[in-house]
């Protein structure tokens, strides 16, 4: 089980996955918006999305868990 974490503080702009989806390690799971930039957050592991912890427009801090992948 692996946690996908926010690499920097920002708003969740787009959520690209749903719980139960299978994802590839290079696949982006969410795109944050911070410093006016789109910040893609990749899954970094291949597996199934067990839990999605954010929704669009949420604010996340660096290190916050975005999703759990099994």
């Amino acid at each position, binding site marked *: 089980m692996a946690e996908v974490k926010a690499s920097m503080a920002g708003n969740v702009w787009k959520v690209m996955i749903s719980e139960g989806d299978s994802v590839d390690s290079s696949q982006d799971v969410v795109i944050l918006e911070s410093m006016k930039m789109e910040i*893609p957050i990749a899954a970094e592991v291949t597996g199934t999305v067990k839990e999605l912890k954010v929704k669009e427009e949420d604010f996340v801090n660096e290190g916050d868990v975005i999703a759990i992948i099994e």
Partner: protein
Amino acid sequence: MAFEEQHQAMRERIEKGGAEKYHEKNAEKGKMFVRDRLNMLLDDDLNVEDAFFANCVDESLPADGVVTGLGKLNGETVAVMANDSTVKAGSWGARTVEKIIRIQETAMKLEVPMLYLVDSAGARITDQIEMFPNRRGAGRIFHNQVKMSGRVPQVCLLFGPSAAGGAYIPAFCDIVVMVEGNASMYLGSPRMAEKVIGEQVSLEEMGGAKMHCSVSGVGDVLVESEQEAIDYVQKYLTYFPQNFRTQPNEHDPVEPGQFDKTISDLIPENQNAPFDMYELINRLIDNDSFCEIKREFAKELITGLARIDGKSVGIIANQPRQKGGVLFHDSADKAAKFIQLCDAFNIPLVFLADIPGFMIGTKVERAGIIRHGAKMISAMSEVTVPKICVVVRKAYGAGLYAMAGPAFDPDVTIALPTAQIAVMGPEAAVNAVYANKIAVLPEEERQEFIKEKHEEYKENIDIYRLASEMIVDDIVEPNNLRGALTQRLDVYQSKNVQFTERKHGVYPV
């Protein structure tokens, strides 16, 4: 026994290193014997070895636990010191330290690169009076490293532990290659940490290769095996001259690899959308010539050696795919050391800017982002090697300055046609100037107003306007960028400047 036989027997005994059980233990961990490492690293074996007989009267300490000498690597002479961890865990006695100091002195006299193959438990406490405090005690090793820094390349291959004081050997090197699982650096062991501060932590967590290469930044290159470390160092040294007085060797020019997408296809028009900067780098450099430093650390900035048309260059590039390419304290710190490394050894620098600025907020202020940013700008300012600034997309705010913008005396500022240079991006600027006005506008007029102001702002910072004002020296079509860099690097070869006259600056470190 005749003296020849006696001599031969002693030679064989010393060459074997420590007891068989330590060889076996090392082999289990994927660690090679010190003489095998040297054999793999160098073109041949060591050509000359000194103090082979150090401490030979004590049969338990062959070569006193360290091999020092000179050999050839890529056809050029290098000096090496290599710990033998089969001899008292590679610990330092009085003669170990003296051997290391002497090979450093030799490297300085000959002005050849110094390689440190580190695998040592640290000082032999039983020998402390002889090896620790005196003028030629262990402190002199570090003093010498500082003196050699920038004079000859200093490379550390970290194959095992480097504990306590020993951890400063890697710290003073230009580059530290760490083997995952075996290499570690720490001032106090986990046992000591538990005793002194009540912390329960594993060695890997506290001082392992992965941690140092991705979190602390003390390590530069994370590899999986000793062979991989050796391959990396052999490649790394091809970009460097023997010392600061000479130029890096030129290699045969190689065309970049073949790609489906051109540079124009690659770069999104939307300034805020990410793209992978590695893909741009690969289209600019000779195929297979990228030798990255600190790949795992502060990934929003890429630093690496490469060749363009056969010539060594140092590349510093913002990575929009990571943290939007925003500069952080760690990325600024990473850049500062890389810039110094290239400048010290006559390697021209190419800055590829696509940067929204420096990060803001409490977290980075507490981490000293201003001082780390100042350090990067200071290092970049002082560079006397050819310095090329390419504005790939955006260069906003102090980001323009940090990436060798026009005020920092680059030899040229090149922009791609879609580049934007400004104090801040259109969204932020319109918000800063018109926030009050936008707030009082009727809801239905707001979007229209903002859009209009965005367009006005974009016109104001249009790159052709900046070229007209001679802020950028040239606008180059993306697919001609490699050609432009090749020409520039060729004509700037004779650059000969002194930054300023003084003893040395007071650096914001």
